[in-house]
């Protein structure tokens, strides 16, 4: 006889959400199906705070946290972590410094201790920062011959004006990274690290009450009155004509191609409709319409698809492909043709039904493991979607109309005014 088992998605009945006295929001979801626990979180210390000549500061600070604290030197930190087979990582994106950790559930206390120690008491030891800086610069120099990275950089720089934070790389440049001083790093930490708007999600094999208590013990008394309020991003003007950049990179066999425009942030009312339109354009069924014409019908590329990267700000809505250098112009024409189609014709009933089904149906797979659940909960908290968001998700998606898709595509995409970035061996002319 078949077993009848009930599964539930995380919701207000089984997520514990606690706001500590200092403002840190903690979400815990118990999952005893494996012995592990993951931790994820973020706070407002992203690269939007970097000034252009010091781009990369937020990221260098985040990556230096685990190089030494007031009470643990580099070796002690890493021996403690690696002896437990635990892991803790920090990184900075446009709007946030984020962290993620993993450990066996029995070691969660130590993971929380290490998180709090590295967030609150880093010392940025000069020798370790210099070592990291050297590794960072080696990485940046390596990317100077990575055609995918070069295409993406040129795309970003053409898409956003120089006065917009998104014009600049979160990872800094070969010019900016050497300029970042220890004083800069310590000042950034003092000003931007603190409990304000910090979110921490814990998922795994431990009781929610225990997780909250442990985090309260380590982070509950943290105060930083200097943390600034978030500032608004500069307004972006709509592109009136196409912009194109071609970069020749020696020794390459394939050309990386990127086309697109500024897309919606997650806060925009059109975000979900745009996401659904993007799925039709370049994701659903092996990379959507773009994959169908570029890869399947004409065999021009190994990969071809599109994505929306908007989060707390207006990320790009872009099409990417890796193509044979002799096929670049044909691939661009095909991609622009699909942009014209998605911005001029309502999608079919089948298209919208299929893609709604895809969005709704993929939820269980996104929640397959602790990391997937943690990522979903962090999104829910970041964008204030409500603890029952996953329960109501089906209805939210089903309510989107074909007109809303067309409107969203027309608002953000214009085939006659796209940024086109091409990097490869140069046969594309």
């Amino acid at each position, binding site marked *: 006889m078949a077993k009848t088992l009930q599964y539930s998605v995380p919701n207000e009945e089984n997520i514990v959400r606690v706001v500590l006295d200092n403002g840190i929001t903690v979400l815990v979801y118990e999952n005893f199906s494996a*012995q592990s626990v993951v931790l994820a979180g973020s706070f407002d210390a992203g690269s939007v705070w970097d000034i252009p000549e010091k781009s990369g500061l937020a990221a260098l600070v985040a990556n230096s946290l685990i190089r030494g604290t007031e009470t643990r030197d580099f070796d002690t930190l890493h*021996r403690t972590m690696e002896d437990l*087979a*635990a892991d803790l990582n920090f990184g900075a994106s446009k709007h946030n410094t984020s962290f993620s950790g993993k450990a066996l559930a029995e070691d969660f206390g130590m993971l929380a201790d290490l998180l709090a120690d590295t967030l609150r008491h880093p010392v940025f030891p000069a020798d370790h920062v210099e070592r990291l800086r050297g590794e960072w610069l080696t990485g940046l120099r390596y990317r100077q*011959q990575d055609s995918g990275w070069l295409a993406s950089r040129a795309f970003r720089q053409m898409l956003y004006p120089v006065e917009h934070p998104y014009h600049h790389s979160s990872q800094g440049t070969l010019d900016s990274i050497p300029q970042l001083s220890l004083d800069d790093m310590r000042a950034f930490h003092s000003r931007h690290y603190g409990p304000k708007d910090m979110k921490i999600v814990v998922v795994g094999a431990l009781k929610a009450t225990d997780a909250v208590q442990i985090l309260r013990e380590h982070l509950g008394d943290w105060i930083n009155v200097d943390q600034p309020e978030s500032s608004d991003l500069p307004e972006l003007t709509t592109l009136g004509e196409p912009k194109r950049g071609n970069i020749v990179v020696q020794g*390459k066999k*394939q050309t990386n191609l990127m086309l697109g425009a500024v897309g919606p942030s997650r806060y925009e009312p059109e975000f979900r409709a745009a996401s659904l339109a993007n799925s039709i354009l370049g994701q659903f069924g092996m990379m959507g319409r773009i994959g169908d014409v570029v890869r399947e019908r004409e*065999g021009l590329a190994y990969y071809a698809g599109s994505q929306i990267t908007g989060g707390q700000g207006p990320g790009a809505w872009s099409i990417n492909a*890796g193509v044979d250098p002799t096929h670049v112009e044909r691939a661009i024409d095909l991609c622009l043709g699909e942009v014209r189609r998605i911005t001029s014709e309502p999608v079919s009933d089948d298209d919208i039904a299929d893609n709604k089904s895809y969005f709704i149906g993929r939820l269980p797979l996104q929640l397959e493991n602790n990391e997937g659940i943690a990522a979903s909960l962090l999104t829910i908290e970041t964008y204030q979607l409500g603890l029952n968001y996953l329960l109501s998700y089906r209805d939210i998606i089903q309510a989107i109309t074909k007109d809303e898709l067309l409107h969203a595509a027309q608002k953000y995409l214009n085939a006659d005014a796209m940024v086109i970035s091409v990097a490869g061996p140069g046969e594309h002319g």
Partner: protein
Amino acid sequence: MTNITKHTLENGLTVFLKEVHAAPIISWWVVYRVGSRNEPTGKTGVSHWVEHMMFKGTPKYPGGMLDRAIDRIGGRWNAFTSLDYTMYHETLPAEHIDLALESEADRMTNAIFDLAETESERTVIISERQGSENSPMFWLREEMNAVAFRVHGYHHHVLGDLADLQTITRDDLYGHYRQHYVPTNAFVIGVGAFDTPDMLAKVKTIYGAIPIAPAPKHFVRAEPEPQGERRVIVNRPGHTAFLRVSFRTPSATEPDWFKVDMLDSILTGPGGGIDNKTSRLYQALVKTEITAGVSGGLSETIDPYLYSITMTVRDGHTIEEAEAAFNVAIQNVIDNGVTEAELNRAKKQAKASFAYEMESVSNQAYWIAQSAILGEDDWYERYLARIEAVTTQDIQEAAARYLIPERRITGWLVPTGLDG
């Protein structure tokens, strides 16, 4: 095997089922015992290309139909070709598992291999190779494997040589498919939220109908023992130099493999998302600021393969410096062994990695498949017990046996700059 049931159907197909009810999903894998290991010169890349053609459809499920059908239910599917195998997998909401069962059974025998689509896919396959060629390290890895294996099929890349990708025909592909995609050369694996008797009944109905076919004769040529160090230099445009050192190591079913596995963890860290800053080579190379990074890898292979360590030379330093420091660190392990603390850390990290892997039904299915490919159904389940038995003396002996110049392939990626 704990909680895993194994069945063999009358047509020779082997079935592994494991119930996991942590989430309402099922992962379904179909695995063929053929990979780049079995490809003769002139047909390199044929396994991988056949894998691509399997997504081009059957009369029942024409090209693109399954892409859409699986996305429509929120599933994911993919395939990958490796040295030893070709694997196809679907992970789906449990109520839709019939789609995976039926479509995989269908394409085991009914894939079309249309001539025009074969030609269209040729450019896609070459494009995939060109994408890899954009990475300087691809060239070094490919050259080193070619030097490490003169006879055995491990000598060429899974993607195949360009010369073969330009000349392989539709009939070559179809012949490979007909020869190798038969029940006697396949395993199917299901892990997830199902009831085993119900699932087995479905599998018997759907897969039991596939006709019996003779087991293929696999093309394999044994590699002779190396007779000395082999060295490779690759020049590519760029700024960054790399050192890669590979050692000929035993197959994954040999007791020594587990010793080398623990040795790798001590030398370069455990991988799998766990950091490596306490590892020997991080301390010797990165902490001393000679390299910007170090990583190591030991594959689970049917035949003896390679343990490889890759180092990114830091700006302002040379490959010679990196190689000298590397050799000192390796000689130190051979001469002085490792500590109990290092070995205990490596074992604990292996146990944790095992626990992390178990969170996902897809990963569990993969490891059952990998074990079956190795010919030891309980390989992964016994993994922790086998590494637990490794001693510090074992590690030192393994280092002295395998990390020696006679078994070494040393590769330099020498950048030529970007300006001329």
